């Protein structure tokens, strides 16, 4: 990959990676750091990176950085501090907002899988390469995530 292609990758994928990471860890500064670290690592290995496969490579690095960050954070933070209340503080504004908050309730694997699937449009194979899961596991995680979201949305609509 050439420096010019690297710059093109920054322009094309930095926002998507940032959204994906931010959605997962809910920390803007950390998400920014992870994206910067991701591109820094790509820059170091620029000669060995193929431009056509740069997108999945970037998401793979970002995903691993993100997992490292989550594991590191979990060591020093209690579960209560990490959880973000969904229904208690916010009022209902629409299905999209509710969905965004429900996604945070998903287990990490399911969240990553469905975010990569819906946000970036990756297929199962690419998601499996990024997350290190098998394609079957990716599919199951996405299925379970959608089931969870469907049930939650159904319950909310019933309450409303």
């Amino acid at each position: 990959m050439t420096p010019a292609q690297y710059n093109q990758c920054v322009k094309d994928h930095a926002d998507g990676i940032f959204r994906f990471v931010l959605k997962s860890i809910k920390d803007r500064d950390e998400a920014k750091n992870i994206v910067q670290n991701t591109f820094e690592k790509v820059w170091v290995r620029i000669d060995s990176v193929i431009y056509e496969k740069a997108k999945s490579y970037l998401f793979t690095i970002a995903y691993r950085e993100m997992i490292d960050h989550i594991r590191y954070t979990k060591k020093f933070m209690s579960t209560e501090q990490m959880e973000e209340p969904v229904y208690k503080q916010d009022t209902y504004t629409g299905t999209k907002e509710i969905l965004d908050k429900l996604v945070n309730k998903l287990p990490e694997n399911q969240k990553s899988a469905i975010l990569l699937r819906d946000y970036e449009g990756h297929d199962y194979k690419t998601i499996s390469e990024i997350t290190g899961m098998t394609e079957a596991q990716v599919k199951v995680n996405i299925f379970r995530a959608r089931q969870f979201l469907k049930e939650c949305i159904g319950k909310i609509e019933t309450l409303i």
Partner: protein
Amino acid sequence: MKLNKENYEFLLFELLEGNLTEEDANKIKTEIEADPFYSKEWELMQQTILSPEKNICMPEKEAMLVAISVPAYKIHFVSVLKIAASFVLISSVIFYFYKQRSDLAQQDRTELSDNRDPIAANDQKINNEEVPLIDNIDQNKRVSPIIPSQFANTKHKRDVRSTQNKPTGIKANQWVPFEMNVKKVDLKYSGSYVQNVAKTENLNLEYPHPNAETEGKNLIVKFNRIQKTTLLVLRDIPNISVKMTPNLKAKKPSLGFELKGNTVYANALIQVK
């Protein structure tokens, strides 16, 4: 494939993910429309699709871009290359036309020379040489001629006239018959004593055999050399005329000499090998 309470969640998921064939998808959709429960489930399932928030962007993204430094010579390389190419092109065109012109001029000279040569050229050469003619010879050793004052300081004058009239209808590479009148006319210093120191008249060169173009040219050159030598030998003999009759068409080309003078009369036939 039919929806039931056990598989509907999986099939709705497959339909949402686009994993079903078109035929199966149509069947499932038909069943969904027919059953309110499945319709409701399908509606909820469709709402699980997350849409990315395009308004969320990476802050300070521009700071991650690397500066691509391009050397100055690369920036100007194309411009320099264009200028160099233009220069080379223009030079080539100029050189081409100059060469063409030069070649044409050379060709003209060659044609002219071929038509007049070798005798004319050689004679021209002879004329250009500093041949000690009679007026350059020490006058004390000679019988002092009475030189009219009007001719006393007049330089030796030569009049070399060449005529070449190409007949029409001559094919290419064909020897053109020509007649070369070589007149070497010296000044008449007096009315009777010094006249026509050496005069070659009507050196009629007939064109040689068509198949012996080079040979014919060589012969003419040789004849011309003979003529030159003859003129040099006879330069001090007053009142002598030389008539040379070359015969190039003969099987054995020859050059006939006829000398006429007050004290000399000779003729000879020189065969040139």
